């Protein structure tokens, strides 16, 4: 991979740092009136998700990371791996629990998600911002209680537990924001 100098650091650039692929979020150039210039760089470690700031001497460089985001369809889970397919090429990829992380709570078969590949293998999985999932267990609904506030936990088919309004019943499908884990609305079938 190519090397990138601090003045080429842009938001979204993927670089190798301390052995891990990282994505650059922000790059601030600072310099005293006279003297050494620095770049204060915010990065996300793509292997761990950690976001932090590292300072470089201006002009230092980092090796680019072979990382790319691909739109893929989630196929199934075989008990150990989650399987994805690129719709255009039908190429399949399997991701382990480390790569999938908490995203497994939002993966529904056939849904499109973003699989981040590092050296050709899944590094992380990003579900769609909104998913529609069936409730498999929640306390009995309170009919006619649509106006009143209040919520209760509901377990979704994927195992995720979200807070839903009291009138929602088992077997219904709800729309959830995967970035916050918040209930959005009931989906009519």
């Amino acid at each position: 991979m190519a090397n990138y100098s601090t003045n080429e650091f842009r938001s979204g650039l993927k670089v190798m740092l301390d052995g891990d692929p990282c994505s650059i979020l922000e790059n601030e150039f600072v310099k005293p009136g006279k003297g050494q210039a620095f770049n204060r760089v915010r990065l996300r470690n793509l292997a761990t998700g950690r976001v932090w700031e590292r300072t470089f001497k201006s002009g230092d460089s980092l090796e680019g990371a072979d990382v790319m985001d691909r739109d893929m369809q989630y196929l199934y889970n075989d008990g150990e791996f989650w399987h994805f397919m690129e719709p255009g090429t039908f190429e399949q990829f399997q991701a382990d629990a480390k790569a999938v992380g908490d995203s497994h709570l939002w993966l529904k078969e056939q849904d499109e998600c973003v699989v981040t590949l590092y050296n050709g293998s899944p590094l992380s999985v990003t579900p769609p911002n909104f998913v529609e999932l069936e409730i498999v267990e929640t306390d009995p609904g309170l009919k006619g209680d649509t106006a009143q506030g209040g919520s209760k936990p509901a377990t979704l088919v994927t195992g995720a537990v979200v807070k839903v309004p009291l009138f929602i019943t088992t077997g219904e499908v709800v729309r959830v924001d995967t970035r916050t884990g918040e209930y959005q609305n009931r989906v009519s079938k």
Partner: protein
Amino acid sequence: MPWQPGAGLDQLRARAGLLATLRRFFDERGVLEVETPLLCSAGITDPAIEPLIVGEGRSVAAAPRYLQTSPEYAMKRLLAAGSGPIYQIARAFRDGEAGARHNPEFSLLEWYRPGFDHHALMDEVAALVCACLGQRPWRKLSYRALFVDSIGIDPFSASSAQLETQARAAHDLGDLAGDRDFWLDVLLTHQVEPWLAGQGLCFVYDYPATQAALSRIVTVDGVAVGQRFELYIDGVELANGYCELTDASEQRARFIADNERRRALGQAPRPIDERLLAALDAGLPACSGVALGVDRLLMLATGETDIRRVLAFDWERS
């Protein structure tokens, strides 16, 4: 590809107004406006400043020319020729300096005052800034007091290891390594300047002798200091000034030391400006001089935080 300017029309008008204010200020004080070449046959030896070099064309076939990083050397030659007080509003160029407060091509206001020491010049800088931004209180802090007040470290007595420990305690600095001045620069940019953001208009003066640049070195309280100052406004570094070194042989020694540091850092040495040294040899009057970032002054005047929005066309658009 966007063709539009990055600055609004109101910014262009504010710039024109600011330039008029600057010229009026110096006209009223009898300071002469001058112009000097942007393309110079010698560059600058400072290891922390890289010039842009023009090497294509018949006029530079024999030797490349350096786009000036400041008009300092040429203006000192005018002073040595008897110009009296002079100022210049010029473009300056510094390779690799780009960010929210830096553009590789920028506008510098530089002026020289024969007979002024750096404290007298700080007074005049404050008057100029107040003429542009409105009256406001200002104060002076020595470099030592600045470090002690902001982060509780004496920059003259602390060891290099202590400075590094203080820096690493708060920041991920990877495998950065350097000398004492390097760690002072880390602390200045990462811890002291953020503190200065809450301090309004503040001059910092009497820098470590190793950071004297082109200022005279004197002994204050048993410590060698460079009679150099920086102006910060709300943490924005706006101006750098010196009580100027006038001794030609010491100036030559500093250029040579700069080039030795450049070699040690793996940088190409730069040709030394022999014309400047000849002028110093002929006699530069005792004077103080200062360079002030016009684009940053405009940022402060208009409340803008990104230099790209006060330039008609910043580096990416030029």
